[in-house]
């Protein structure tokens, strides 16, 4: 076998050029079975990257395109007024023709449009930043004036349908939005454009579509059927969340939805696909795509995937996030650590190195070292990540997390300090006063939203670990010390631990000496004054995990 062929086989699940393009064709119709005037088919790199091939659907609803690479892809089928549908494509080059027929459902619209907003080129179509709320006019319609310096305005309506932004049926033309929908485009004739949302122009449906393969038993058909089931599950989960949010569910209730979400159906879908799947590459692909899906993964399935997929499998490169999620979801740090190290040692190192897998494994190991307070490993993984993959996302995150020359980080000794207690300014607190206890310095303020969101975790940790010699020293950057008193006495969070009011806040000598420029900032100090952990490993749900490791090791 030549080296070229060997390499192609090695890289089979990844996009690779082929001399025999795969012709994919079929029909695309709307909810009533009729062709949709504006409709398209796009084939992306999985799970939604670059568009490799696309075509407009003919007036008779027929379409055809050729893909001249092998690998794993995502096909999006879209039509104006309809919800887009997607399906996974596993193209090996062995199937010359693939036929599939698609029917799109009308958008499932919300019951109320009070939260309807506009996104567009003015905010780069970001759904989480800079959307413009639509205001109700005297005629009952909702509208917004959008100032623009361009000749055209492109936009979508947000929070009108349950699952995705949708186009305006009154637009002059449409452009594909990259994920199965359309952006509305209108010409701008003044310095601003008034966009009006008129529900009467939208035809509502159940949002349910269908994708049928002519040969569901083929490799492409098998992966396609599996991917459809997985997508349906993901969509149902997100629609449940959207409905809960629209009905005024609190964050706690939203959290409960996630906690109560049963991952069994996802595992069943993957298991059913595996049960009859003889192709080892496709088995790995099924597992990787299941692991990477944005739904809950049960630990048992994660451990199964780590056992089943060879650490050097190129399938991980299809969706490296699946590796990260699988390592964390396994709930077994020893096992996950062994797997991550095996990824680094893999004989397919060259293929992995050029991809994104090794940085992912290194980032997980670095995070694991942080949780365990292993400074030697921290330093080693950090140097490896920064040295070999300086441009990776993982390296950027690692640099923010750890640097060998940083004053405040695990392994360093906390600088000496002397500060006055909030409750009794005649009492001072110094590093020596804290010796013998595991203390978390918690820099915060009542004006800081992220600090408030830490309160449940701080209180839980204090209650759980204070019997083991753990305590918290909160250091406030508030404008007035009374702000702290009011927060503790009038709110839900009594913070029954030590407090300090930091005069001059971030400009204080204390803040400078402890390198605190923004909040919340946390520093965990061991019984001998050594810094055990900082910041991210002490926030949110990670606080409990970090404390459970480090307090145990301190004891």
């Amino acid at each position, binding site marked *: 076998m030549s080296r070229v062929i060997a390499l192609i086989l090695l890289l089979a699940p990844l996009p690779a050029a082929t001399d025999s393009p795969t012709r994919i064709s079929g029909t695309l119709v709307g909810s009533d079975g009729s062709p949709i005037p504006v409709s398209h088919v796009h084939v992306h790199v999985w799970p939604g990257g670059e568009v490799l091939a696309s075509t407009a659907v003919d007036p008779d609803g027929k379409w055809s395109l050729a893909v001249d690479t092998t690998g794993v892809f995502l096909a999006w089928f879209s039509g104006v007024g309809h919800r887009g549908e997607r399906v996974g494509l596993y193209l090996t080059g062995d199937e010359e023709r693939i036929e599939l027929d698609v029917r799109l459902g009308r958008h499932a619209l919300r019951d109320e449009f009070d939260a309807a907003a506009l996104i567009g080129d003015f905010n780069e179509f970001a759904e989480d930043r800079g959307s413009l709320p639509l205001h109700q006019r005297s005629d009952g319609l909702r509208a917004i004036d959008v100032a623009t310096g361009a000749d055209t305005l492109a936009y979508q309506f947000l929070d009108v349908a349950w699952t995705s932004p949708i186009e305006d049926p009154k637009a002059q033309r449409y452009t594909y939005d990259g994920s199965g929908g359309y952006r509305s485009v209108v010409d701008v004739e003044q310095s601003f454009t008034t966009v009006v949302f008129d529900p009467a122009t939208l035809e509502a449906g159940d949002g349910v579509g269908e994708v049928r393969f002519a040969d569901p038993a083929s490799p492409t058909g098998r992966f396609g059927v599996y991917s459809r089931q997985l997508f349906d599950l993901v969509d149902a989960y997100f629609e449940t969340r959207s409905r809960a949010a629209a009905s005024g569910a609190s*964050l706690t209730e939203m959290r409960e939805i*996630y906690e109560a*979400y049963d991952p069994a159906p996802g595992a069943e879908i993957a298991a*059913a696909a*595996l049960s009859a799947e003889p192709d080892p590459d496709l088995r790995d692909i099924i597992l990787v795509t299941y692991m990477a899906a944005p739904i809950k993964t049960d*630990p048992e399935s994660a451990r199964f995937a780590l056992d089943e997929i060879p650490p050097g499998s190129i399938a991980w490169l299809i969706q490296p996030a699946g590796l990260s999620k699988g390592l964390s979801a396994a709930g077994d740090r020893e096992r996950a650590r062994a797997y991550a190290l095996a990824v680094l040692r893999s004989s397919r190192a060259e293929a992995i190195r050029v991809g994104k897998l090794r940085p992912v494994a290194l980032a997980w190991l670095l995070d694991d070292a942080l949780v365990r307070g292993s400074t030697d490993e921290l330093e080693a993984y950090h140097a490896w990540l920064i040295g070999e993959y300086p441009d990776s996302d993982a390296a950027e995150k690692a640099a923010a997390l750890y640097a060998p020359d940083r004053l405040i980080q695990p392994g360093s000794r906390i600088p000496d300090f002397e500060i006055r207690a909030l409750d009794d300014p005649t009492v001072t607190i110094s590093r020596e006063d804290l010796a013998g206890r595991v203390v978390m310095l918690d820099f915060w303020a009542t004006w800081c*939203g992220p600090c408030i969101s830490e309160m449940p975790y701080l209180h839980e940790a204090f209650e759980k670990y204070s019997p083991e010699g753990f305590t918290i020293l909160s250091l406030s950057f508030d404008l007035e010390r009374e702000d702290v008193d009011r927060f503790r006495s009038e*709110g839900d969070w009594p913070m029954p631990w030590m407090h300090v009011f930091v005069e001059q806040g971030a400009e204080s000598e204390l803040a400078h000496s402890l390198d605190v420029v923004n909040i919340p900032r946390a520093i965990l100090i061991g019984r001998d004054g050594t810094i055990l952990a900082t910041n991210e490993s002490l926030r949110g*749900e990670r606080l409990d995990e970090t404390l459970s490791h480090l307090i145990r090791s301190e004891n």
Partner: protein
Amino acid sequence: MLARGSVGHSAHTAVILLAAVLAMPAVLAAQGVRGGADSVRVRVAGVERLAAQDIGGDAPVVEIQVALEHAAGFHSWPDEPVVPPELKGLNPIATSIELTSTPDGVEIESVDWPDPVTVTVHYTSEPLDLLSFTDTVVARIRVRLPTTRDGDPDSVASWPDDRIELQVQFQSCDEEYCYPPRRETLSVSLDADR
């Protein structure tokens, strides 16, 4: 549950343990710039004289446009913050503008802020929408000048040849961290057209 060696056999379903872990927790935040000095840039974007007759007054009015330019990923509370119940107890620092140094008779007539926009933050256990200022927001401050000595409210020559000082206060956050409140002082010439 996924099962080993399941080719050719139906995998059975078992009770699945629930896990809260979605992905490796992000280690997102950068150390940032001390004091968040780069998070928001405040500048005078324009000064315009409004003709008294056009605004129905008897004294000249100058409109000062102050721009708050947020760095990518940053947002600040608007002029009238709305604290969601999920952040009960939060003591938000509203974005504000006030005169700190004025010639005699000069006063702020109005400060017009744009509507806030929604910013979704993820530092809570579930994404949370906050009405915020982000990107570039421009406040329009109308400053009423003293009635001119020559009786002509639009007489440029009779305007006070002075500057005023505006103090802008805001407090910014990014996805993970918040920076302490800042006060920026802007010195603005009222002599818009000269």
